[in-house]
């Protein structure tokens, strides 16, 4: 590994962590798309800053860009407050307009500006190590490393200082306001941090990767845990893993570094989305199927309970036409009930066992007295689905 390679991976990992922290809160606050808006609407700020300084990594440019990011948030909120359109529409109206202004400004001064929209949006991490930070002749490493590092330190400092406030205002705005922890300040603080992070990272990795690094690791972590601290940690870990492995994928394919990092993020998300233990696609589908069978079982047992004295109603042949089930389903429910010793079959006539009767009465009582129709604890008591 050459030193440039190490530096690229280091920068990418730092970007991943810097993005994951505000990203987690944005995902939890249902404001993930504001990063999308900010990352596009910083363009006019960058362009104006560039006209003034003619240097893509000057602090003024970052400041102006961050300002136009905050301006986006303010505008979105203003439009939203008028109540004329919904929040997402407000976002969708503001950022293309600002982006258009940026594009037109670039086009108008195309002759004396060496600023490529592609570069702003897509970034090129491979060039990051070549832009060195040099003070009085000493080489202190790549500039973007310093910028990202500074932003990361600031973000971490703010996170540690305001963790409690952030947590409360994220999950219960009303409580936060009642406790005197102004949610508005937290909101704008978070937006400013997100804006600065986006701006600081765009030069190195491009806007799209910033969005991906903000949303994807946090969303992936959210599928695995409900604990805020664990979620933050997991998001950082996912971010760093995909930053490093994404670099090597890009190295192997000789393709865009940000593109392959995003793709690795996508693969990790897809994997977790499918296989996450409680909230993953497969387990949700499995649980839904199980619940459907449970309801069928309950209906079936209630039917039996209602007709204890009428043998024709309880005949095996009669059942699938009466409760209107298909044959396979009827059989699977029957098997389940048999396995759980809820029913017994004699001469093709189904009847409830003691346990079945007990279960049915209790279930009826539960459904009648509780609005909540889950029977989770009863399932545990009767060892349903466990043979």
């Amino acid at each position, binding site marked *: 590994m050459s030193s440039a390679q190490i530096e690229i991976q280091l920068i990418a990992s730092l970007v991943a962590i810097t993005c994951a922290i505000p990203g987690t809160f944005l995902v939890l606050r249902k404001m*993930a798309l504001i990063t999308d808006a900010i990352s596009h609407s910083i363009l006019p700020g960058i362009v104006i800053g560039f006209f003034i300084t003619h240097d893509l990594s000057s602090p003024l440019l970052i400041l102006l860009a961050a300002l136009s990011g905050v301006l986006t948030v303010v505008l979105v909120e203003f439009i939203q407050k008028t109540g004329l359109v919904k929040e*997402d*529409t407000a976002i969708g109206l503001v950022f293309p307009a600002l982006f258009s*202004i940026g594009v037109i400004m670039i086009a108008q001064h195309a002759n004396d500006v060496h600023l490529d929209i592609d570069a702003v949006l897509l970034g090129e991490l491979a060039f990051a190590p070549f832009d060195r930070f040099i003070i009085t002749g000493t080489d202190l490493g790549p500039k973007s490393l310093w910028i990202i590092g500074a932003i990361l330190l600031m973000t971490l400092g703010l996170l540690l200082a305001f963790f409690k406030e952030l947590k409360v205002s994220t999950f219960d705005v009303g409580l936060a306001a009642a406790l005197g922890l102004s949610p508005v300040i937290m909101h704008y603080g978070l937006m400013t941090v997100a804006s600065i992070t986006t701006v600081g990272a765009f030069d190195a990795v491009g806007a799209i990767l910033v969005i991906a690094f903000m949303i994807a690791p946090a969303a992936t972590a959210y599928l695995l845990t409900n604990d805020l601290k664990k979620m933050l940690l997991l998001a950082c870990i996912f971010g760093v893993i995909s930053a490093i492995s994404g670099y090597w994928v890009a190295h192997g394919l*000789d393709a865009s570094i940000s593109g392959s990092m995003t793709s690795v993020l996508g693969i990790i998300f897809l994997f977790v989305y499918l296989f996450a233990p409680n909230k993953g696609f497969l387990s949700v589908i499995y649980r839904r199927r199980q619940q459907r069978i449970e309801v069928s079982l309950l209906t079936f047992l209630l039917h039996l309970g209602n007709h204890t004295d009428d043998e024709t109603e309880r005949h095996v042949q009669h059942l699938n036409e009466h409760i209107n089930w298909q044959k396979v389903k009827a059989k699977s429910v029957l098997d389940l009930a048999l396995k759980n010793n809820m029913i017994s079959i004699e001469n093709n006539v189904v009847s409830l066992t003691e346990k079945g009767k007990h279960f049915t009465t209790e279930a009826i009582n539960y459904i009648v007295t509780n609005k909540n129709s889950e029977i989770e604890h009863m399932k545990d008591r009767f060892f349903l689905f466990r043979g």
Partner: protein
Amino acid sequence: MDIQEYIKLIFTDYTLRTITLGTAVLGAICGMLGSFAVLRKQSLLGDAISHAALPGIAIAFLITGTKNSNAFLLGALISGLIGSFWIRGIIRTTHLKSDTALGLILSLFFGFGMLLLTYIQKMPNANQAGLENYLFGQAATLLESDVWMMSLVTGICLIVLLLFWKELKLSLFDADYAKTLGFNTKFLDILITTFIVIAIVLGLQTVGVVLMSAMLLAPAAAARQWTNNLAVMVILAAIFGAFSGVFGTAISANHNNLSTGPVIVLVAAVFVLVSFIFSPGRGLLFREIRFRKNRNDLQLHKTLSFMYNIARDHEDISHPHAIKILNNFQGFTKRSLQTLEDKDYIKIQGNMWSITATGYKTAANLYDQLTDKEYE
């Protein structure tokens, strides 16, 4: 160039005519379908889908090896559909909210698309100059066949909308009710989403990935301000969209270095701004005027009732009082006193005011209005 000359040019110049027609048709179809997107609270779906179309375009190029615009459209359509259905899946099966799902699909698909694009760039037969256009759009590349294609899709879309109008309207405003009536809401959902994706894919070439969402949203958001009727809104949105296309093309054609896409979006934004401010029912201007008027009325009532309370203590209600004594009450100005006099509620003589019989009666009734409503 003056306007007449420009209009003449539209009819004679092939490129200009194609672009004007193309952007107008595109604006119309986007406005129409955008209305549904906005009302379904899927405003940003356009943004996500337009980004999600990129890998499809890249894969279409990888498979066909040529810059065939129909193959690109097909690829974009397929990957856009995959994206939109994955978004649905994420929202329905997990507890991730729609904004997260949209952001995820947007960035992940686009990143993957970039990976493919750079991979294509390094291939020996790489000549992917046409692909860049999809990022930022280039209306100048529109051909007459593209315009025909757009018109065809618009026509089909219109027919389908008219066929399923009642069902779509119902599922839009009360999905549960539509379901209980036995309509297949899932089918309707998929139908409208598919059409939105088609509109987005058609627009990519003209206005580009980033600005596509505004094309979809802005006309609809503007139209929403003028009406509460779905049919009117859809038609208005189509008109706004078409005009943004025409005006945007006109402005960018008359200036150097102005790409069409951003100008169209800015024109649409102007439509939105004007609608936000000047629409009679919901607009900010009229709302402010109503607000001021109500406030002034209230202030007037307050002053009058204050005067009433003073006059009530005197045997002669028209006994004159100094204006000064109103000082500890801030609800009056010279103008409001003048208004009160104009309404013949009070009389002003020099520094003194006195309440008239009408004014006394009105003031007494101010409270009765609140308490004795049943008499009226």
